[in-house]
């Protein structure tokens, strides 16, 4: 039973998280329902869309730009799926406070539940679209390595990273609405800065260094290693994933806690 928990100042984020687990469940169900309610093919889109996207890009980059990466379709679709997870989840959670204004004006809920549950909804759609990756693996007859069992690790890292970014963005957007317009450009720029359709090996050392500063590169890279190469990369890659994720999550929680105080006066 929820005992007017907002009074208990010392209550941790984790404590809230457990009390309000049913709420996260309901919010995620709602997001998915609203997303697919009006579309004829429903969940099928989550698989079809990345496949179509990959076909288009594979054609553009192999025929026009003569890319010579091995199993390029698989390489592409992994990069695309994971990058879409990042851009989609952060964009939705960015608007989560504003779009749930009706809720938080009427009842108390810990506000960080909103950006987090947006990322969870997006994770669910991403898991659906993993079917597209499997389809591409089957069609291209890609060998299956045991390391595929470890893909939860880059995915979990990315989940935490997205939650952190989502919390910061959602908090700032309440105060500055034009962030919404700006962010579309940012995600596009980040997409080019992430090796999705090109390989990092083709870059000059300086550019490679820059790319390695981008956490998303590490999540995608580890995911590709585990599925396509079947080797376990050195500890640096694992460390880069978990460290960037944890740090972003902690910064996100701290920034959000500061920003949330006056939400009600601005929505």
């Amino acid at each position: 039973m929820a005992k007017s928990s907002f009074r208990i100042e010392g209550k941790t984020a984790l404590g809230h998280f457990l009390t309000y687990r049913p709420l996260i469940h309901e919010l995620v169900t709602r997001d998915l329902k609203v997303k697919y309610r009006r579309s004829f093919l429903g969940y099928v889109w989550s698989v079809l869309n990345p496949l179509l996207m990959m076909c288009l890009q594979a054609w553009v980059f192999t025929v026009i730009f003569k890319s010579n990466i091995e199993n390029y379709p698989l390489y592409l679709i992994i990069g695309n799926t994971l990058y879409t997870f990042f851009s989609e989840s952060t964009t939705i959670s960015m608007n989560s406070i504003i779009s749930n204004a009706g809720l938080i004006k009427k009842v108390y809920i810990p506000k960080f539940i909103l950006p987090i549950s947006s990322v969870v909804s997006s994770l669910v759609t991403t898991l659906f679209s993993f079917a597209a990756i499997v389809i591409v693996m089957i069609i291209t007859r890609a060998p299956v390595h045991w390391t595929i069992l470890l893909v939860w690790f880059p995915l979990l890292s990315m989940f935490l990273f997205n939650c952190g970014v989502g919390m910061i963005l959602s908090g700032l957007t309440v105060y500055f609405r034009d962030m919404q317009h700006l962010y579309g450009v940012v995600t596009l720029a980040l997409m080019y800065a992430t090796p999705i359709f090109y390989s990092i090996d083709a870059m000059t050392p300086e550019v490679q260094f820059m790319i390695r500063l981008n956490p998303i590169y590490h999540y995608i890279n580890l995911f590709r290693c585990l599925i396509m190469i079947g080797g376990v990369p050195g500890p640096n890659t694992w460390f880069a994933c978990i460290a960037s994720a944890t740090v972003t999550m902690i910064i996100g929680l701290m920034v959000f806690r500061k920003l949330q105080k006056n939400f009600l006066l601005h929505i």
Partner: protein
Amino acid sequence: MDTTENTAIIADHISMKFNLAQERTEALKEYVIKKIKRQLHYTEFYALRDVSFSLKKGGSLGIIGRNGSGKSTLLKCIAGVMFPTKGTVTVTGSIAPLIELGAGFDPELTAKENVYLNGAVLGHDRAFMNERFDEIIDFAELWEFVDVPVKNYSSGMYARLGFAIATEIKADVLICDEILSVGDMAFQQKCRKRMEELLSGGTTLLYVGQDPQTVEEMCAEALWLDHGRVREYGDSYKVCGAYMDYLDEIS
């Protein structure tokens, strides 16, 4: 102030200040420019000034006052939706708030889906809500519309659903804001009966209404807010009487 174990709500000298910005700066560029030029002017506005009261477990308090006197703002502070600028609020037990009619529904979702969402907002899982689902819809008399998105509801239907959920989950404190003003006569009677039942069952009631007559009948104590200040507070018969005299005087 009474701080024994038997109090459900203590509001201790709470004030709520709003900054009414002359122009809202929602654009980043504007904000930066104005901050630099020190042009961010606000008019300070107190919606609540130094409001104190305490309410026993199982007690009932009616809040009256003219439009804009701060009634809903006071309820929001108590429900934890807003933080008061000054002062503290202490609530013991779970709260079911119905502030400004709504219960925080999602307009795109159906009544059924909103029952679960609203339940979760108040900290209850699906199993808990399933047990109470039939009673909720029975009480709200909405079986016909159970699969209709609530955006297509009339305001009375909306209020019924909110009231039915908030009273069916049996929270320790029930907060009702203007709930009787949109329901039809039959439903108003039903709501009053339900509130009386809850009160005799030990629920604490915080009730806002425009009609001093109803407040007097429903609540043991009343608090009259005037421009955010407590004008009178005490026995509801006395406070509502004074408020009615005041209304007669100004009209």
